[in-house]
């Protein structure tokens, strides 16, 4: 399509950009694997200096990092599982089951898409404060599983499945629940995978809500915990530790992303492109 020289220049620029995008990540891993004393002298290496895994060992043996990781795992897994169940069931109901109030309920869900979460954290805080539920796991999970985007995606998905599958099952005498479980759910595995990964990443990385709700350091997630250690950048004595913590906070997501990248990318186009 384009001529040879422009193509070469294009590749050169892309390669340079790729370097800019990858170097910060490599640097984090390299510092995390470096000896702390060596880092006190020089921090500008892209390869580990006096390579060691001490930083990771220290973090796991003492301090709060294991607890924070545990909190993150609990909250993220719970949120993802509940979001998937609720979105699939609500999506199926909206797409297939005629019920009273549907014409009011679905627009309300769509209106929920318009509500910017970050602008609504104060009232959300007050709801949980009224019931004295802060610093608990369910306070971190519940607001997240109300995912209008998930319901919207699943409704779209189920609407596009041809009706014949269900008709055949109805003739065989299958109940609605059986149809949902045996026919619809297996067919929606790709959509659910994409939604699940998307939810997982968003929840793991959520910052503002855990910051507001889980104020007890033992209830921090790894995301807010890592942020809490960045108050004072002047004290760079344990730079390796800090970077190792960054690796702990990002590794699960990077691994998940590299395994499921096709689904992630499809999920994004699905979630926003189809609107």
């Amino acid at each position, binding site marked *: *399509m*384009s001529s040879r020289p422009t193509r070469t220049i*294009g590749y050169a*620029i*892309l390669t340079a*950009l*790729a370097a800019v*995008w*990858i*170097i*910060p*990540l490599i*640097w*984090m891993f390299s510092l995390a694997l470096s000896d702390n004393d060596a880092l006190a002298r020089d*921090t*500008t290496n892209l390869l580990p200096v006096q390579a060691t895994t001490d930083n990771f060992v220290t973090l796991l043996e003492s301090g709060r990092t294991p607890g924070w990781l545990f909190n993150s795992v609990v909250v993220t897994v719970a949120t993802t599982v509940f979001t998937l169940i609720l979105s699939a069931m609500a999506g199926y109901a909206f797409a297939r089951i005629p019920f009273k109030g549907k014409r009011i309920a679905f627009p*309300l*869900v769509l209106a*929920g898409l*318009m*509500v*910017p979460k970050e*602008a*609504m*954290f*104060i*009232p959300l*805080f*007050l*709801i949980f404060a009224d019931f004295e539920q802060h610093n608990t796991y369910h306070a971190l999970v519940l*607001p997240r599983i*109300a995912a209008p985007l998930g*319901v919207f995606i699943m409704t779209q998905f189920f609407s596009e499945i041809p009706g014949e599958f269900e008709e055949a099952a109805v003739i065989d005498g299958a109940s609605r629940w059986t149809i949902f479980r045996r026919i619809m759910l297996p067919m929606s595995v790709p959509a659910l995978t994409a939604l699940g990964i998307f939810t997982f*990443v968003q929840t*793991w*990385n959520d*910052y*503002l809500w855990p910051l507001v709700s889980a104020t007890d350091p033992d209830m921090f997630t790894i995301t807010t915990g*890592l*942020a809490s250690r*960045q108050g004072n*950048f002047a004290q*760079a004595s344990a*730079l390796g530790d*800090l*970077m190792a*913590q*960054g690796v702990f*906070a*990002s590794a699960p*997501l990077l691994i998940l*992303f590299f395994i499921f*990248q096709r689904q*992630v*990318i499809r999920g*994004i*186009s699905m979630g*926003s*492109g189809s*609107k």
Partner: protein
Amino acid sequence: MVYLIFILYPVIQAVWMGFYERDLLSLDRQEFIGVDNYVEMFWGDGLVWKAGTMWPWRIIGLLGIIPAVVAFRRGRLRAGSLVAIIIGLIAVFGVIMGIHPGEGGRWNDSQFWPSFGNTLVFVIMSTPVIVGVGLAMALALNRPGRLVGVLRTLFFAPYVLSVSVLTLIWAFLLSPQLGLIGAFWRSIGLEPVSWLTDPSLAMPTIVALTLWWTVGFNVVLFLAGLQDIDESQYEAASLDGANGWQRFRHITVPGLRRTLLLITVLQIIASFQIFGQVFILTRGGPNGATRVSIQHIYEAAFRDAQLGYASAMSVFLFVVMVGVSALQFNFMGGDNR
């Protein structure tokens, strides 16, 4: 039900709380104070109106009437929307922005307008940059091949990092003494720059690292949009002797209109919600240059314990964001309906 409780109810609660005074430390007590919170937020003592205040910004804002009129004449905008846009622009840029504290006067909340202004500055700087760079990268990547797939993965990878990992990496990367960028600057014989502590550089730096963090998302969406454009259109245009720019202008741009609208709206909404990056990296500094609305709301609620007032400010931010996205859809999607 869950949706009602956690998404729509908070909106109602926010509007309602906006009329109350409520203290974080004694949550049980609340007092109805009517619109006092909004007066506190918007108003001040000894305010005066002058035509010349912030005039460059206001002229630019008023010039927004021209594209609206053009769109109307091309039939892309209904008459009612045109009138609403013109009245809105004149009200905001012609009248409201002329209000400022006079001699000895002051705003009731001296931080509210500056932090909202900083949010706007971030939105205005980051949206064209992150959308434009995303489009350019997607165009460059829109070809078959293994390498392209690898690069797409690479550009998207930072998007899965959390904001605290982002700030961790960049705080040190940008550090004049410890960071790679400082080292690079020294190696070419320049004095390292303190990116985050220079008031005029802090916000552009935040934009740059947000670009690194999130542009992959836009690239993926643009690539999906480009895939929907029929390849044969390009071939036909080439046969007719269209050059690269003409092909871009007459095939790519119209073909991407919907995607472009969607990405721009998503980006503006995301940019309005900026908080984590600046809160962790600069705490709103240097000298308040990067203090944004959400930080102001957060601090009003949890540092100053004024939950009612924070709710009122949430409502304001909410209305602005919904307004912007409604306007955008109306303006850019006018001919699709």
